[in-house]
């Protein structure tokens, strides 16, 4: 018995042998990595001295990228699970407006407003998922309906209650609240103060904030983005549930046969997307102090674009959260970078379309070449 145990086990015939290089090539995030390098090289060449890479500039495109990342994580996991959510943008507007209505109009404490809004949006996410599962309709259509319904309420409620479409004054209401800084606060402010004093980063030149560093901390938005990316990545690649997500998106029926609770997985992913949208909305409302009926317009497509640039397949079953995060980074850097490079702003959409197309073609090409699909 002891002798047999010591001999090297015969190679498992079910597992195909692959070189480490080849394995690195078929990672879904490869396209995202190449794109990130290309984009940074481009802007380092064309916009280096434009302020894009000073502390304010870096914070600027990091914040925008972080916004995209937050919604991309949810959209990515949902897409891998084989579904879409087109209501992300409307959910952002809706959640923000609900927080404003609960806290400002109805006078609830801000923490309660935030928690109730999260509960509400998770319920709507679950409802989206439930309808998709029960009716068997494409999620594209179901969430398109949610897009209109939520946007409609977002305009209707504030008009009904306050006779306007933007509700402000949340910053004042949120002062001293324990939950608000979790979304709208900044961390490492001491470090940045010190950096400002030592002259590593610039300070304001005049006015009441003279002497303060121009960047006074890392916004919680960025912290949330990083936390969500790590959570999504670990969930997808290190847990049983992650395998279920891949299985549900790859072939739902086959997954059901082997005992994967496909319905539960999909509904949970719809809820996660709604959760991410609400995190986005809460951070935005807490930072800016007001909720507007037009917040989050077209953000659902921006999330999907980031995910696709990051190498996920629209058909589900293939993708990576890290890739989606890189896609969001590319998106944010390009969007803000074009301003730094003084490119006419109406051309932004042209660039966006070109980059999307290039990313998708490149990803498909690489995948076909490596996996030998036709």
């Amino acid at each position: 018995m002891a002798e047999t145990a010591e001999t090297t086990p015969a190679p498992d015939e079910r597992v195909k042998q692959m070189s480490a290089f080849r394995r690195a090539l078929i990672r879904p995030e490869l396209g995202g990595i190449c794109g990130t390098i290309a984009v940074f090289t481009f802007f380092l060449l064309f916009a280096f001295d434009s302020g894009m890479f000073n502390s304010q500039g870096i914070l600027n495109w990091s914040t925008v990228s972080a916004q995209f990342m937050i919604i991309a994580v949810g959209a990515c996991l949902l897409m891998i699970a084989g579904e879409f959510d087109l209501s992300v943008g409307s959910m952002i507007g809706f959640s923000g407006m609900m927080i404003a209505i609960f806290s400002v109009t109805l006078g609830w404490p801000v923490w309660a407003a935030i928690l109730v809004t999260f509960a509400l949006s998770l319920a709507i996410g679950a409802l989206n998922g439930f309808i998709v599962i029960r009716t068997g309709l494409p999620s594209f259509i179901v969430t398109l309906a949610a897009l209109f319904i939520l946007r409609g309420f977002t305009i209707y409620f504030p008009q009904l209650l306050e006779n306007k479409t933007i509700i402000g004054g949340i910053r004042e209401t949120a002062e001293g609240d324990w939950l608000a800084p979790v979304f709208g606060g900044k961390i490492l402010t001491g470090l940045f103060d010190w950096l400002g004093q030592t002259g590593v980063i610039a300070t304001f030149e005049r006015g009441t904030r003279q002497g303060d560093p121009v960047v006074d901390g890392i916004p919680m938005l960025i912290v949330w983005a990083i936390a969500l990316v790590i959570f999504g990545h670990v969930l997808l690649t290190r847990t049983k549930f992650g395998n279920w997500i891949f299985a549900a998106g790859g072939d739902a029926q086959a997954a059901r046969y082997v005992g994967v609770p496909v319905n539960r997985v999909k509904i949970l992913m719809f809820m996660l997307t709604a959760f991410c949208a609400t995190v986005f909305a809460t951070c935005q409302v807490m930072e800016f102090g007001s909720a507007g009926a037009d917040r989050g317009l077209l953000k659902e497509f921006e999330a999907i674009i980031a995910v696709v640039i990051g190498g996920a397949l629209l058909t589900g079953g293939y993708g990576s959260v890290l890739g989606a995060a890189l896609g969001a980074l590319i998106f944010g850097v390009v969007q803000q970078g074009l301003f730094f490079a003084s490119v006419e702003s109406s051309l932004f959409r042209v660039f966006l379309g070109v980059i999307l197309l290039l990313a998708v073609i490149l990803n498909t090409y690489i995948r076909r070449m490596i996996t030998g699909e036709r």
Partner: protein
Amino acid sequence: MTSTLRKVALASAVAAASLTAATTVSAEGEKYVLVSHAPDSDSWWNTVKNAIALAGEQMDVEVEYRNPPTGDVADMARIIEQTVAAGPDGLITTLADFDVLKGPIMDAVASGIDVIIMNTGTPEQARELGALMYVGQPEYDAGLAAGMRAKDDGVTSFLCVNHSIQQPTLGDRCRGFADGLGVELGESMLDSGTDPSEIKNKVQAYLSANPETDGILTLGPVSAGPTMQALNDIGLAGDIYFGTFDLGDEIVDGIKSGVIEWGIDQQPFLQAYMPVVILTNYHRYGVLPGNNINSGPGFITADGLAKVEEFAGEYR
């Protein structure tokens, strides 16, 4: 595969480089950036773009126009933050949402960038933010003046076609108009959306449901054109009292043909042109006007349309 990658990267870099070279206005001297809240689809802002370009040329300064593509004010805040990081000499911006833009604009002021508020906002808000001045048309007052004019002309009930209901400043025009008329706003404000055929159909539907309506106010070219078509289709053109904010080719034609009673010109040209001139002279010679500038309202009727017609959509 690497060669393909390299080719793709090179091709996009070359394409982008040529675009960058083509769109950067090269001029000596100061650099000013104008940030608006208008979505790409809003043609009215073309006048603003033309006016800053003209001012930039005449004053020999570098000017740039930026806007959030979807009109999302939160995105606009990021653009202002970006502008601050890039460090131009002056920032000209609209104040579409005071709460959202307060922080970024105050940061701009604190970083040593001179700010002028244009178009939306109020003189009080401009002063609070530490901006040099406000150049624009106070919206509520303009609506109020229009309402009082309509009341004198015998209007008793009205429809306000709002193509951008999420913008509070546009709603103020309707509210001012209602107060000027001395009626309740109530259900008179129509959320029309920006699609021309939707606007047209919604206006027709409203007028058939509320046949007693004897006045219409549209808030810009986006809603004025389709509303005119709607009136033509149902035979009420020229019969119903029709006033509009802002100008444009179609509105000028409408005023000429008698379908539109008057257009309120807030003269966007001045809103974009004056700040560039003022900032340049301030930076070069240290001179600054002592007051805010009201660029409107000016009522434009069938009399004296010639200049307006010549430059409608370009500088008017």
